[in-house]
């Protein structure tokens, strides 16, 4: 109700008592005498489609005609770690593969030098980009640094700065020599051969990865598009530009993360701040993808694990709301300039066009050319899927 889902009734009754009951099954904190809380900022129409959206996102607004806004997404839990896991893996509790791992498993890789699933500055634990029971090659690889400083390697343990490259190479050669000697004696051993290969790949990664995070070949204009060099948007801009570079290089699934949206209080300053940090880089990414003709076969999904309540928490914040919230998609075979679904008059519960996280996943896989009911892996005696036993493709939004 603050960014993409304008609620006139909520505005009108801001500060008054709740017209609905809080769910009795949920323990609460900071909701004593809670009142309705109107939007943090104003709304205005954007694009030819006239999408009515917040003025906190002026750059994103320029792409309104590319956006497919899902206004009634819902998730299974109002708790961060659980809902975050569901967003990533479809499952609330079990250790199962992340959607990026499923995609890597389903589509394979386009680049032998790079992992097929990369997550840039992940905010949450490894389980959200883990391949679980799928092969380790489908594991998300974390990029831990996008800064211009060379002191922190983009991938953990990428290099050993304590000795020269000559010594490093010599050390690897010795390991390989010892390993080959042993293998000759054993005649054959698949895993040991695999280890020898993995050392060669490691050496290649040491050489190749730093080139990817080096933006020297990107024009000033392109960098400016993402807000790189501006204090507020520099880091997130770098994340988004790196995402585009990785996408071009053939990485199948890329995630860019930005924390700090959990506004239990002071949402009137907190939300504008997050918007200012992310708006230009996100819009830059859309513009850049479009200019390069990549947007048609790149699906961009924007959203978080849940939304916020229409009522106030601690007076000037909002509590978690997993019952009905907004995400948007762009490119990759979805209709642009449309909205799908609606929440009630206050933005609390979805009332039509509800999209469960499982539906979202089913749709994403569909857009990637995969049938979520047939992309399975047998584990513990039964076939598993990203959508487990649920999920429907949201056909209405397909272009």
């Amino acid at each position, binding site marked *: 109700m603050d960014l993409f889902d304008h609620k006139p009734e909520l505005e009108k009754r801001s500060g008054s008592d709740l017209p609905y009951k809080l769910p009795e099954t949920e323990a609460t904190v900071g909701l004593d005498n809670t009142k309705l809380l109107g939007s943090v900022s104003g709304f205005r129409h954007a694009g030819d489609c006239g999408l009515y959206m917040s003025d906190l996102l002026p750059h994103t607004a320029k792409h309104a005609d590319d956006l497919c806004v899902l206004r009634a997404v819902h998730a299974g839990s109002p708790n961060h770690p659980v809902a975050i896991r569901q967003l990533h893996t479809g499952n609330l*509790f079990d250790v199962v593969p992340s959607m990026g791992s499923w995609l890597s498993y389903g589509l394979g890789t386009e680049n032998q030098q790079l992992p097929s699933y990369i997550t840039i500055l992940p905010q949450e634990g490894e389980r959200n980009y883990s391949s679980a029971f799928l*092969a*380790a090659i489908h594991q998300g690889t974390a990029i831990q640094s996008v800064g211009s400083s060379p002191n922190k390697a983009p991938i*953990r343990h990428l290099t050993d700065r304590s000795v020269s490259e000559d010594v490093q190479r*010599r050390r690897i050669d010795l390991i390989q020599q010892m390993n080959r000697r042993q293998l000759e004696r054993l005649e054959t051993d698949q*895993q040991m051969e695999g280890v020898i290969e993995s050392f060669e790949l*490691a050496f290649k990664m040491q050489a190749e990865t730093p080139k990817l995070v080096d933006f020297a070949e990107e024009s000033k204009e392109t960098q400016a598009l993402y807000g790189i060099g501006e204090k507020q948007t520099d880091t997130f801009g770098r994340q988004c530009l790196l995402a585009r570079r990785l996408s071009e290089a053939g990485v199948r699934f890329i995630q860019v993360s930005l924390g700090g949206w959990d506004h239990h209080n002071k949402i009137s300053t907190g939300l504008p701040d997050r918007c200012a940090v992310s708006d230009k880089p996100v819009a830059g990414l859309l513009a850049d993808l479009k200019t390069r003709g990549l947007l048609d076969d*790149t699906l961009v*999904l924007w959203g978080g694990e849940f939304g916020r309540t229409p009522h106030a928490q601690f007076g000037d914040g909002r509590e978690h709301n997993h019952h009905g919230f907004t995400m948007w998609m762009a490119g990759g075979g979805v209709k642009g300039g449309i909205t799908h679904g609606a929440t009630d008059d206050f933005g609390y519960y979805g009332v039509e066009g509800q999209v469960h996280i499982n539906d979202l996943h089913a749709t994403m896989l569909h857009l990637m050319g995969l049938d979520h009911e047939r992309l399975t892996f047998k584990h513990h005696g039964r076939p598993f899927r990203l959508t487990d036993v649920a999920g429907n493709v949201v056909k209405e939004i397909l272009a």
Partner: protein
Amino acid sequence: MPLHVRTGPTLLVVAIVAWLITTSADVTAAQGTNTPENVQGVAFFEKHIAPILKRRCYQCHSHDSGKAKGGLVLDSRHGWEKGGSEGAAIVPGKPDESLLMEAVRYQSYEMPPDKKLPASEIALLEKWISMRAPDPRKSKAPKVDPAKLWALQPIGSPAVPVTKDAKWARDDLDAFVLARLEAEGLTPAADADRYTLLRRVTFDLTGLPPTPEEIEAFVNDTSERAYENFVDRLLDSPGFGDHWARHWFDLSCYADLADIQGNVLIRDAWRYRDYVIAAFNADKPLDRFIHEQIAGDLLSYESDEQRREQIIATGYLAIGPWTLQNYIKKQLDADVVDHQIDRIGRTFLAQTISCARCHDHKFDPVPTADYYALAGVFHSTRTTSYDGPGVWSAITQVRLPDLRRSPDDQAQRLEMLADLRSQRQTLQAELTSLLIKIPGGSDANVLTLRKPIAANDKGTNYELSFKAGPSVWAGATQRTTAGDGLQIDLQREDGSILVGFRHAPGPWSGAKNAQRLKPVRFNYTGDGSGSVRIRVTSATPGSSKFGGAIDDLRVSAGSRTFFFDDFDDLRRGPVKGAQADTKLTVFAKAIVPGWTGGGLNHSHAVDLGNGDYAIQFYGGGAKGLAAVKPVTPDQKEAHARAVELDKQLKDAAVKVAQAEKLDAPKHALAVRDVDEPADSPIYRRGDFQNLGDVVPRGFLSAVSTSTNYSVPHGTSGRLQLARWLTDSLNPLTSRVLVNRIWRHVFGKGLVRTVDYFGVHGESPSHAELLDFLASRMRGEDGWSLKKTIRRMVLSRTYQMASTHNVKAAEADPDNRLMWQMPRRRLTAESIRDTMLATSGQLDPSRGGPSLGLELKGNIRGAGGKVNPPTWGSKVPDYVKNRRTIYLPFLRKRPEGELEILSVFDFPHPNDIIGARPNTTVATQALFLLNAPFVKQQATALSGRLSKHEPEDERARIDRLYLLTTSRPAASDEIETALSFLDQCTEDLKGNRGAAWSQLCHAMLGSNGFLFRE
């Protein structure tokens, strides 16, 4: 969290497996008598109704389509009887009360959704229901006949096979293995050499390599029993429990912290960890081990020790991946119960019972009713509780019975504690004196009496008295906390301390105890060394808190007063503020006549009203001695001494804390029965808001046992569950456990799907051997883990080499018949522990808490009302280099100090995983090449080697091989290493020592180190 996905032009074909298992049509006559009426009804159904259902409904409501929208299937009588989320779809004989009719009439639901049925078909359905809906179709949910599932058949007692080669077998198990090999025309591999065997068995039993000394002794021991003796020594070593307990934790989700976010503080998980290790080391029979973990609190006991141990054992159920901050508490309860059922199902029964939470198991004989029979047991067990405020629940803590101590013991302990406290005070007083001497050493407030007083006659008893209480300045953050206090020293003229007193007034708790000063008395005996000065300061310099406030300070002997000051002639300073909570006026830079002030803002005072003042003592900021720059030689000396004292003081503080803790009440994370144990209703489709029939508590109906274990009124039924699991006829538990043991000893299970023996699991490669082992373990060997393992490692099968065999590999590429011993990479924790052992850094100490909660900042957010405290992540030095099992585990993938574990396939603590994956990826190579941990171990190893073999580099290389690969180096390996050293020395500008570190580093990354044959 925006994300974006790149699609490419290529697609891989993916294995396609239908989700639901379908069976061929199975329409037979209805059960029961074939009355004419019945036959007629069935004919009506077949002719009119079945085609309608098939054409109009099956698309969304049948097993064949794989869809059960709304939970409803219409392809069997059972399907519509059970119905979907709204209950039964048809009420036989009552069309108007049947949901199905409402739906096809478009009254509530509108079914089929695309187009209403023709009126004629609606009429047929109505007629059929009026006829009481005859329907001969059996449930399509595949019913597995328990008699056909191998794992549910009784465990046999197969005869030991006779083999052609009568000499090869050493243990009966060998005969089973050899018989299969002979039947396939294969031969077992030759015996492994002694180096290989010793490395293998030492790793398998203790997770560590043999030492060079053990290797030498074993290789030279030609006695017949050399190997057997060595195995017995390994089984008796504490390393056995350290290693095998970890296998158990892979199945029981152990972590030292709570909540799925990872670091919520729970203090007593380690007791359960130590219980498991001790149980394995003591060879507690496995049936007893199971009983104690599931129902230890309900078992009888003979001593307080035993009772404590049994309560601690139930940590098995209490420790798990609970979402403690789940807002929806009923959901939390249901999820905890589900996990407990899942864990027990997989661990002991190798069944996926949890599938039956929402529906009858799709292919194994586990109906939903069985699930809720078990759920009743665990809903009757308290694992977490919610008291508010906030949204967090807590894991149940059970107070352990105190252990009775003999009066002598108790007196001794009190004496020890008193000694320790006095040591700490002496150190504190001395340190304070030194700190004041060094510029910038401390900005703690100090008040020193200008003129000494004559209260030090030899042998005279004096009393020092004053009033004191906790205090605070304007900001509440500086309030006195429990650890803060005042230090009052009587200094001789030469600056030495005659006697020091420490008084802790307790924490400031807002207005409740605000500036209420209580009388305090100390006594001392004079030593005749001359007059003394009184000095008062905070007892905890660097605390950034007020140690307390003091008033009415007096020194007396009998009726004679030597000194008194009520501080009421104080001259107020220019800096003033309003005290937090009380709003009393507080002053800084006050002048206290007769005293020298010092420290931050000179002297602090608080105005108690009516001209009454008390003096406050601020502990000063935490600058640390490292930041202080002494100038003069005196200062330097004082500084050096202060650094040393500071360390001693910290050690003393830890000792005092530990000693005090010994007498504190002890708690364990443990479960107990709820006040009113009860049966659970079925949660339809797993939804706690959609309740069905209540199911009496019980266990799996497909498993037959020697007796019927009914749950007595007023108990949860955990005890019955424990006994049911280990019942003499339960066909699963002993098979599952012995298969797990086999897996750890031989590399893979006889049933390789070690956690799943169901319909879609694997059948045993040696079914008779599995039964033989299971019955021997629970019969002759009395559920002894050690006896079972001992027999396995003494077998000929275990002692085979890992030699390749072209013929065998062709016939049996997976080595399921055991024609060789498989080569295996070390487990993640073995890699870490072995690196530490090899480099000489491994700390052999064991047991006890590992979180280091006594370290400053290691408890975060204590005192918060809404969220529970979290752990500060500082791993204490006394734990850091211990074996992995003793390190603190967060409830997330290990990182930081333990990152190496995650790199090498260590399970997530929320996983129940009997067979870890064994991956080979480039990140492992990167870790071995570049991670600081490996580098540090390599450097330490190199240092250790040069001390051991300072002169002879060849001998040093040989020892390096012994340490890292458990065998001597071959001559070509020595040459290779020497030439590497020469080249590396050149690269490193002549630094031979650095070249040696590189060589050690390479060894720690080589397959010779990472694998055992």
